């Protein structure tokens, strides 16, 4: 068994996502919406996140391990899809990004993206959110980009999860932000 590589996707496990950035960027909310969407597709999700002391500014991350049955090992060990919305989060994932992962970063806030064989896509996420009149929806713009480029889930299921998890007066703005995120990767 020496040198045996742990398989990235076993029959029990489908994929791992890390949503990272700095505290206050809405990453835990993003994780909740994703978890809601995957669960409604019948998948089983385990979510872990950074501890309280780091959640007020500084590194914030939330990991989702998604499978067909309860994940054995609930923490991310081989990330397939990663979102980085702040430079502070770049170092935090060095050893757990899968070789063929998709990494989406904010073109402005991440000045020095991680380097590896994985694919890095720098997108104007924050700029798009500001264009929509509210930088706080950058998380949802990113969700659109990740969903579209990673083919993670159907657009309709994510939109339904957004409606379930975001106060109704902000629904329209967030649905629009999600659509703008999809547009960023449409071609």
């Amino acid at each position, binding site marked *: *068994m020496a040198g*045996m590589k*742990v*398989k990235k996707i*076993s029959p029990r496990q489908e994929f791992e996502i890390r949503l990272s950035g700095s505290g206050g960027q809405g990453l835990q909310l993003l994780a909740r919406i994703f978890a809601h969407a995957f669960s409604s597709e019948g998948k089983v999700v*385990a*979510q*872990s996140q950074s501890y309280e002391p780091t959640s007020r500014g500084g590194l914030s991350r939330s990991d989702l391990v998604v499978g067909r049955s*309860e994940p054995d090992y*609930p923490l991310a060990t081989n990330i397939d899809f990663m979102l980085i919305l702040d430079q502070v989060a770049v170092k935090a994932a060095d050893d757990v990004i899968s070789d063929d992962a998709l990494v989406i970063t904010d073109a402005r806030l991440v000045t020095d993206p991680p380097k590896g064989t994985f694919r890095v896509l720098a997108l104007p996420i924050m700029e798009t959110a500001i264009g929509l009149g509210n930088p706080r929806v950058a998380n949802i713009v990113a969700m659109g980009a990740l969903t579209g480029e990673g083919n993670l889930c159907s657009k309709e299921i994510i939109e339904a999860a957004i409606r379930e998890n975001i106060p109704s007066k902000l629904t329209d703005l967030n649905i629009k932000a999600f659509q703008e995120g999809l547009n960023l990767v449409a071609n």
Partner: protein
Amino acid sequence: MAERTGNKQLVKGNVALAEGAVQAGCKCYFGYPITPQNAVPEYLSWRLPEVGGTFLQAESEVASINMVLGAALTGARVMTSSSSPGISLMQEGISFLAGDQLPAVIVNMQRCGPGLGGIQPTQGDYFQATRGGGHGDYRTLVLAPANVQELFDFTYLAFDLADKYRNPILVLGDAILGQMKEPAILEPDHPREEPDKSGWTLTGAKDGRPLRNIRSMFLGEGVQEQLNYTLREKYDRMERDEVRYDQRWCDDADCAIIAFGTAARIAISAIHEARDEGIRVGLFRPQTLYPFPFDAIRSLSERVKRLLVLELNTGQMVEDVRAAVGDRAAVGFHGRPAGGLPSVTEVLAKIEEL
């Protein structure tokens, strides 16, 4: 990990255990904040008043555990929760609960030590949990959940066990289990069993019944000795009736991993990987750490000759496993302390070394 039917929801471990307490009829919670279990008091601060209970944030862990003792004297179902350094502060009170023979539930979401340590997950408190922890010749029954569902189920069960034995019961989790979210059913799978406690509780003797006095100090010749025998008889009953464990894939196994809590989750991933490669590895997961499943592990060691103990510390439960196994099988150990988490690859390499 056992399959249950019902309405599953994605829920944080700390919240699931708090709801388990509420559904067990917990009426009082006293605690002091500490990472990584703050979601427990946060949840109970609004949830307990909803069911007519009392939530109180005390000025310290020492105050919390003594408030627990006071509430337990009245027969109320009562709980506190903390994390390792806070549980150390509570040890005197836990010893008093044991000496006074009072039911209470204590949750320890372990973080790493020694000293103030850090906030990372660990299983460094195995010795403290299973050997009593405070002074005197006593034990606490220790339940070791490995997932969010068991955090709910075991906390719910802990209240019944506390009343059954009139003894403090410990639920031993860790920073990963408390903070992670996964699907769980927040409904009990059996009705709770709360015995009539009116024969011993301190509720005021206004009705003319004889005065009662609950204490742990007895200076008369041989009286304290007798109390210790009474306690021992109780622990004998726990050892006979309350051993719980989960044993899987052991029938055809050439080797087996023995692990509890989060370490068992890592073990299961490694076992799946190994079996995909044709290496037959089994799992033995103690769900009670005291009483420890000595007999079941002894019998496992008669069939499976290579055992690996996996812990998030530098070797604590392995002492109990070695005591159970003797020279019947080879016992290897792998552990990482203080926030270090063994990777699946690491565990596979250790299996190969066996």
